[in-house]
């Protein structure tokens, strides 16, 4: 019964939700916090190369048990690893 409920909840939670995602321009010395011109959906984009500024962003995130909003620039002064992966419930 618990299992059925969990699966049901999981399906509900995977339905698209409106989430305010923003690309904020270069991260670093300029510390851009204004929304940058995000690429249009479907537009081909390129991978930024080593030596370029990491695009800053603002996204909802799960941190510990909390749901909050993070920016890449929140971690200025630290080394950062940004990992993109296809989907939850897969290997990384």
């Amino acid at each position, binding site marked *: 019964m618990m299992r059925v409920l969990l699966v049901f909840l999981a399906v509900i*939670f*995977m339905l698209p939700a409106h989430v305010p995602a923003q690309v904020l321009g270069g991260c670093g010395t300029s510390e851009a916090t204004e929304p940058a011109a995000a690429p249009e959906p479907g*537009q081909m984009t390129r991978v930024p190369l080593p030596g370029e500024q990491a695009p800053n962003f603002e996204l909802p*995130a799960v941190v510990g048990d909390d749901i909050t909003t993070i920016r890449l620039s929140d971690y200025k002064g630290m080394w950062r690893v940004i990992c993109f992966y*296809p989907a*939850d419930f897969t290997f990384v």
Partner: protein
Amino acid sequence: MNVEVISISTDTHFSHWMWKKTSPTIKNVRYPMASDPSGAVARAYGVWQKSGVNKRGRFIVNPEGTILAVEVLYGPIGRNVDELIRQIKAMQTVADNPGKAAPAGWQPSDGVKGLITTGKDDIGRY
């Protein structure tokens, strides 16, 4: 190591939360798991795909916000965490020792004494 990991997928943060509640391994995750359903951030990093799922892209960013390393894997290939740690340790060690370089095959256990000095005199020596 003064490193923060941020993971990003196109799943919602509710899905992340659910994954965390149901998976015995993901339960232990302490780093921020960010949600990018529109794919805007994935497109800014060039790892967005039409299918809606991201490529496995990995970016190492230094404290000043500059990207120092990029790895993008296609399809069903997993990553090597040891290599990630080796690269970050090498970058940190070199950053603390200006004018030095970590040669091919440098390992964290080699430390500072494993670094080499770079210059035109070294061309052809390795």
